[in-house]
């Protein structure tokens, strides 16, 4: 399914031309999802933090303000977009190209996969001189995407849905879909606390994700950041 295009600079007549190959990796719906999702995560983290630790109190009549109401509304609206986006992302994993499926599974029984993970760990510990190049996520990134993003996204949707169901009430569709998961936590205080912890895990994921994307764009001689904009992964030293 990967469309390939040879792009060379030879036609320009320069002495230092390197043939650069690019592969179409991320299709348009997936890229759109990525950036909408990224925006949702920022909004959700900021508003979620403020729900747990509200801004300073305001005086006057209650009817003059709606600060927590607005913060909660933005959080819930972003949560709906995040959740529906996740469903759309699952749909795209089914109908999209092979790279769209990568974050939903770990090739647990593949020996070469774990060899690749070990190599990547070596690369990040400065033990390996040369990075390997991959069309999709590298094996370590693949692992991180699965556990820190996909699993956490499901966890946040389930815990968040269960908390939302506390407001919509017993018997609401949110309660029927998510309520059983919330009940596993016993005291709802635990549910709130673990949802809050989940936010921090995702913050940590974002820190690593952004750092590694920029670093590998520079260090491993393949495009990363622009790939999520154009969809094309360019191999800067030519062949794969």
């Amino acid at each position, binding site marked *: 399914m990967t469309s390939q295009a040879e792009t060379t600079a030879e036609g320009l007549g320069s002495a230092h031309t390197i043939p650069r190959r690019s592969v179409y990796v991320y299709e348009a719906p997936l890229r759109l999802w990525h950036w909408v999702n990224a925006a949702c995560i920022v909004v959700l983290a900021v508003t979620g933090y403020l729900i747990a630790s509200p801004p300073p109190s*305001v005086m006057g009549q209650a009817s003059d303000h709606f600060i927590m*109401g607005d*913060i909660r509304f933005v959080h819930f609206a972003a949560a709906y977009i995040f959740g529906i986006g996740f469903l759309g992302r699952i749909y795209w994993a089914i109908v999209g190209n092979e790279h769209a499926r990568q974050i939903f599974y770990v090739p647990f029984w593949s020996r070469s996969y774990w060899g690749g993970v070990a190599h990547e760990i070596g690369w990040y510990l400065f033990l390996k001189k040369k990075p390997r190049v991959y069309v999709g996520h590298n094996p370590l990134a693949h692992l991180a995407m699965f556990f820190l993003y996909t699993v956490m996204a499901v966890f946040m949707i389930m815990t968040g849905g269960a908390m939302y169901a506390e407001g919509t*009430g017993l018997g609401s569709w949110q309660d029927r879909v998510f309520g059983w998961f919330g009940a596993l936590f016993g005291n709802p*205080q635990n549910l709130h606390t673990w949802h809050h912890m989940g936010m921090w895990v995702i913050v940590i994921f974002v820190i690593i994700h952004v*750092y590694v994307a920029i670093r590998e764009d520079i260090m491993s001689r393949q495009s990363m950041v622009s790939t999520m904009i154009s969809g094309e992964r360019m191999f800067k030293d030519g062949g794969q």
Partner: protein
Amino acid sequence: MPEPQETFYDVIRRQGITRRSFMKFCSLTAASMGLGPTFAARIAHAMETKPRIPVLWMHGLECTCCSESFIRSAHPLVKDVILSMISLDYDDTLMAAAGHQAEACLEETRRKYKGHYLLAVEGNPPLNEDGMYCITAGKPFVNTLREVAADAQAVIAWGTCASWGCVQAARPNPTQAVPIDKVIFDKPIVKVPGCPPIAEVMTAVITYLVTFGELPALDRQRRPKMFYSQRIHDKCYRRAHFDAGQFVESWDDEAAREGFCLYKMGCKGPTTYNACSTVRWNNGVSYPIQSGHPCLGCAEDDFWDKGSFYDRLTTIQPLGIEGTANEIGGYAAAGVGGAVVAHAAISAIKRARKSDDDDRKQD
């Protein structure tokens, strides 16, 4: 052959209560349980035809606050419940008999009404040292509880002790106190948590059981939906201040005098299912938030082990470290952020050296 039992109605009339008062009582009870007007007639019919249900009320590890609450019920009056609605055959705290006479009542009811009595449990059994931390009538409470529960029709778990474990089950729980559903497995259990539960909630649950002969609709944690399906926060009269962003920041500040939301003072209303904000206490006079104090979340599992009552973000103990989500998550994020900066610096140095080497090679 058991002798024919008196119905509720027989007992009520024998006490000289008029039919008019009886009907008023039925309507009031229906209203207090949130049932429609037609249910008053059903309650009246049930009371006229059904025999009084014997109730055995047992006390394990507890502080008797459930009984203290129960005897203050206003709708219905606890006098009506005990003297008219149920036949409270055994309650070692409230009954006139004591010692061997009291235990004889327990035995007699168990034998006579096998499979037809209600068991109400206040407190819970400790399991450590074969149950030696709670002895009633010379026997470990856990043994008596198992025996009496075996012949019961249904079991009521009064309060947070019987429902969740409460203070005696708080870390490190030296007596290994457990909620009663860890000991009784084969009987329908209804949990009425709270430390103590609201008096009217207790009497209404009993009224429902004796009127309809079945448990009320229960939620996932086996609590009656009619009293435990909403959080304190959902019906709190200070909710408007929460939505507005008006919070008490410290005791006795202007916001506290204005009666603003106690969320920042650690109120557990948003995570506590109970009827305090609607039924209230002491015949509807007040409830903790109304008197200016945050909800402690006493009707919820494990509320003693959630750190300070006055913190909104409560502590968790992953891997033996204790801290709030913000402390643990914040330090972890800062650690990862620091590691990223260090890693980026090393990467940059390595890369600079490598390009120096490359330049030298080219020269």
